[in-house]
């Protein structure tokens, strides 16, 4: 049984460490610093932390101004508010001028749980992916989150990082590298490929292990970067395995599944099954029960693998 760490906890710690080494790092929040974990940064660097109050639009605008003034702002709130309420501020004040603002959105997806559908963002990756100049990251676990946050800080330009609420299994080693725009091969295999992002990559690994017991050899790729997507890795998997199952805690519209299909359709058409939220909003319930209810488990990935193998020519 692997260790369990919430990606938002890894963010809070990584941000503090960045703050110690670079005085240009500043943090903003919109009254959710205890939940997004920017409170740790606020405690250590009170002069470099700005609480906007419950005013996400102004928070993003202030972050843009801070970036225009030479700082490296990390602005955090829940994904539903970051990509939703503050969308146009991210578009006009951040992405359009390509300012060096990092939007770190926690509580993405349905594993927000009991707060219900109003607070479960199933569309943030799609929204952010459509914005020119925007880089979109969705790390799988704690160590990768820390690495992704460091990579975002080192990258000059707007970045949207999607994190989750609950604890998720650790897949990556401490101090793992993170290269923006690169996918990672977590398991070799020639019969089909699982392509996961966020917490669904762990489910893909479990599904591949389960299929191995039946003699099915599944490759597992993880995409910590949704945009720019690692096209070469996607196409190589399409060519070599001829069947793909995508897995994301997000609508099947506009996220990883869509991005993979766009690449494969143009470069290497092969059967694809998309696992994700089937164009519906979530609802209240425990996170695990919601993942089960909406078909986002390793069992569902195994079933999808069988379907896609049945369609393979």
């Amino acid at each position: 049984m692997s260790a369990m760490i919430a990606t938002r906890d890894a963010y809070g710690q990584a941000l503090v460490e960045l703050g110690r080494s670079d005085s240009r790092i500043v943090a903003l929040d919109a009254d959710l610093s205890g939940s997004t974990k920017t409170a740790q940064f606020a405690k250590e660097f009170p002069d470099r932390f700005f609480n906007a109050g419950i005013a996400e639009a102004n928070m993003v605008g202030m972050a843009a101004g801070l970036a225009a003034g030479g700082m490296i702002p990390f602005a955090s709130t829940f994904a539903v508010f970051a990509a939703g309420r503050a969308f146009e501020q991210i578009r006009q004040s951040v992405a359009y001028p390509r300012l060096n603002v990092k939007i770190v959105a926690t509580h993405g997806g349905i594993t927000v749980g009991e707060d219900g559908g109003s607070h479960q963002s199933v569309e943030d990756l799609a929204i952010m992916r459509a914005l020119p100049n925007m880089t979109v990251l969705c790390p799988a676990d704690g160590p990768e989150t820390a690495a992704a946050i460091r990579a975002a800080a080192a990258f000059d330009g707007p970045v949207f990082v999607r994190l989750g609420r609950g604890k998720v299994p650790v897949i990556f080693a401490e101090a793992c590298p993170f290269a923006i725009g690169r996918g990672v091969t977590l398991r070799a295999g020639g019969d089909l490929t699982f392509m996961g992002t966020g917490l669904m990559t762990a489910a893909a690994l479990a599904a591949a292990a389960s299929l191995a017991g039946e003699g099915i050899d599944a490759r597992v790729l993880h995409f910590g970067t949704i945009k720019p997507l690692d096209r070469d890795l996607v196409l190589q998997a399409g060519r070599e395995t001829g069947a793909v199952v995508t897995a994301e805690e997000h609508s099947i519209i506009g996220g990883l599944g869509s991005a993979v299909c766009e690449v494969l359709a143009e470069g290497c058409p092969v059967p694809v099954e998309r696992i994700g939220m089937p164009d519906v909003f979530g609802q209240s319930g425990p996170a695990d029960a919601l993942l089960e209810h909406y078909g986002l488990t390793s069992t569902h990935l195994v079933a999808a693998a069988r379907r896609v193998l049945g369609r393979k020519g």
Partner: protein
Amino acid sequence: MLNEQTVRSLEAQAKSLRMDILKMLHASQSGHTGGSLSAIDIMTALYFHHMRHDAQRPDWPERDRFVLSKGHAAPALYACLAAAGYFPAEDLATLRRLGSHLQGHPDMKKTPGVDVCTGSLGQGLSQAVGLALAARLGGGRHRVYALLGDGELQEGQIWEAVMAAAHYGLDNLCVIVDHNRLQIDGFIEQVMNVTPVGDKFAAFNWHVLEIDGHDMAAICRGLAEAEAPERPTVLVAHTVKGKGVSIFENKAKYHGVAPSDEELRFALQTLGA
């Protein structure tokens, strides 16, 4: 410090910039006439008297920052920047053309001297607050000026930023409201009343000054007095939309309409070309 000669010279500069604005709008046959003319006296005072900036060093870290939150008045900004030497005056005729660095709304990545991207109303003040916070963090002495439209005050984000500027005690931030009383659909009082403007800022604990936005001496005095300990300042500048050319004055129609050949001739005659 502010002598008669300075005021006269700024007035002459503003008149010349009005002509530049109208000529560029006429050349592009697209753009915002009324709000550029109502704002130009204020911007003349900022660019040619009050702000510390250097056209030879557009990226000078210690320069005062200017945020044209009412980004549709871009022609007024471009006229100022060209006259100040940020780019050649001939460029003004390329306003809104394909490939021009003079976009329909200000673009910091394309135009030398433009500090932020604006155009979507309501967003500039938040950026100005961020710039003022960055100035404070960096230990800089430079100030941040933001020019807002009065119709723009209908955007809720403005009041989020007004609240934040006061909360953070940003005494290095000065807002000027171009209170020309008109928006696209008509008089502000009729479309969605935002008056009294000064009282609203005062309620958020801002230092409030009311000025005639076309009285050059009053504008300069207001900018000089726009400092209060640990509080942001707003100059509520009472202006006339389309100011300077009778046919454009107080007409909502000229919010987003460029002058015709005949209107330009009349305007240039009026302004004494």
